[in-house]
């Protein structure tokens, strides 16, 4: 009896969340792929062919035969999309590097702080993450505007005479990404650095190794798992970022998340935006799988 209950319970525990994710995560992707092979029409839903199971097998075969790769051919032929993909990856790559540059010293400083203040520092890093993403991006508009606070400050400090144009440029987008994603990078690096055995560094320094060399030879390699996880957590979502390029970027900012949104909402071209999403996903599949493996491995090693 006990065994029977246990097996029923274990089946439920697995199947409920499993089914939920299959219905609301996996199947939607299949639908996206299916619609990316359709054509746009003026109808509800605005694409054709639609598959109607009730119409019988022959009708289904007919509508499947209408599928085509036209949307993908269009994506390949129009340089706009190619450039948007490329510039998304470039912007995400540069901003990931910049986030690492800003975030590593913070994580390092936190890990080497006295144990009594460490938990407070940790809370201080997490706190901005709890405030809305939109609010944090919005805050930068007031700072970066031509008549904004940064320019007022720089003119007051006599650094510049004429206001800098930062808002609506790629620089603003980079600042926005670094700012919004910083906690995602600081936290994994901090947790690897905190667990690190500092006697290794002390030993190296006792043997005459300069602190900088000790850092590059010992500390940095040991913090690699955190660095890798953090960089994925910044890079992957940043490639498809929509809010930041939309609010802080300008006409020169070409990012694929924004392109997808425009195709979807302004042009109401659902098949084409689905094709854009499929290609974006194909682009990100390798980093996503690597990220998932790294996470699973980290969980295993904690056991």
């Amino acid at each position, binding site marked *: 009896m*006990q065994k029977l209950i246990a097996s029923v*319970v*274990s089946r439920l*525990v*697995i199947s409920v*969340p*499993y089914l*939920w*994710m299959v219905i*609301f*995560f*996996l199947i*939607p*992707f299949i*639908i*996206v792929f299916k619609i990316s092979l359709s054509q746009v029409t003026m109808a509800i839903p605005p694409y054709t062919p639609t598959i109607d199971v009730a119409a019988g097998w022959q009708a289904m075969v007919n509508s499947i035969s209408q599928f085509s790769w036209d949307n993908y051919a269009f994506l390949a032929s129009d340089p706009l999309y190619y450039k948007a993909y490329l510039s998304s990856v470039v912007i995400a790559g540069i901003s990931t590097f910049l986030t690492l540059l*800003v975030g590593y*010293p*913070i994580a*390092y*400083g*936190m890990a*080497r*702080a006295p144990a009594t203040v460490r938990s407070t*520092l940790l809370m*201080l*890093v997490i*706190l*901005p993450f*709890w*405030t*809305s993403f*939109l*609010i*944090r991006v*919005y*805050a930068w508009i*007031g700072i970066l*505007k031509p008549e904004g606070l940064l320019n*007022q400050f720089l003119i007051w400090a006599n650094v510049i005479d004429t206001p800098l144009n930062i808002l609506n440029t790629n620089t603003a987008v980079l600042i926005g990404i670094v*700012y919004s994603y*910083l906690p995602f990078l600081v936290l994994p690096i901090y947790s690897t650095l905190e667990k690190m055995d500092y006697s290794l560094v002390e030993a190296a320094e006792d043997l005459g190794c300069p*602190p900088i060399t000790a850092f590059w030879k010992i500390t940095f390699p040991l913090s690699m798992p955190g660095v890798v996880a953090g960089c994925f*957590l910044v890079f*992957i*979502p940043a490639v*498809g*970022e929509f*809010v930041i390029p939309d609010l802080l970027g300008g006409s020169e900012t070409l990012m694929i998340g924004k392109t997808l949104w425009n195709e*979807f909402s302004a042009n109401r071209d659902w098949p084409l*935006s*689905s094709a854009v*999403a499929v290609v974006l*996903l194909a682009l990100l599949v390798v980093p996503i799988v690597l*990220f*998932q493996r790294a*996470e*699973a491995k980290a*969980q295993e090693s*904690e056991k």
Partner: protein
Amino acid sequence: MNTTWSRFNIVSLVIGFAFLYLPIVLLVVFSFNESRLVTVWAGFSTKWYVSLFNNKSFIDAAWVTIRVGLISATCATILGTLGALALTRYTRFRGRMLFSAMIYAPLVMPEVITGLSLLLLFVAIGFDRGIWTVTLAHITFTMCFVAVVVQSRLVTFDRSLEEAAMDLGATPVTTFFKVTLPVILPAVVSGWMLAFTLSLDDLVISSFTSGPGATTLPMRIYSQVRLGVTPEINAACTILIAIVAVGVVIASIANKRREVQKARDEQAAARH
């Protein structure tokens, strides 16, 4: 420890935290600005808060957001906790690789993809878009965060406690509620809070999956921001920040108290 390094640490922490907090502080300060301009200080005023509370569309959006947040965070916590149990307790079942991929992928999936795919699902099954579609979408992406948070607590859980309960004749369900849940409760609670704030914040997935009459607060703020920056938005943002800050402070005080209590209990136990 080398002094130059620790000075470097302090400087990098000060600069880092200034970078993290200055924009938010400025945003809050200018919500109390007398002037319509959000960048020129013209004296203290709370008039933007008054005009915000008289703005019906903001209030309506706030209610939608809170309702979606409460329902989706609660469902996501249940589903996410089950998911975490499945991942840590049952190391072998068919499709485990796929399941773990489906739990981790939404953490990094660009929101435009998740939003578009859920919208197309709702259209395909003929589900009218509105507050319920937003809620379903929020449950889906927040339950993964809950699963990861709870899982990290479960892997360090001492399973002999459960085995002892089962040996004494407790059913698996009783064991879960009497033994496992109390131990992992802090992680479950923080998972709920995380799910709630993620739902509160979400703009992109809500915009895709929402329909008429279901405008959330971030959607409302976003459409206002596109028209221009006003102190009224600053006031709305300040209220949101205040709610979150109060919640986090209460949670951390409760945590501290529990730790102090635990330490006291341990001392008392040691004395006996």
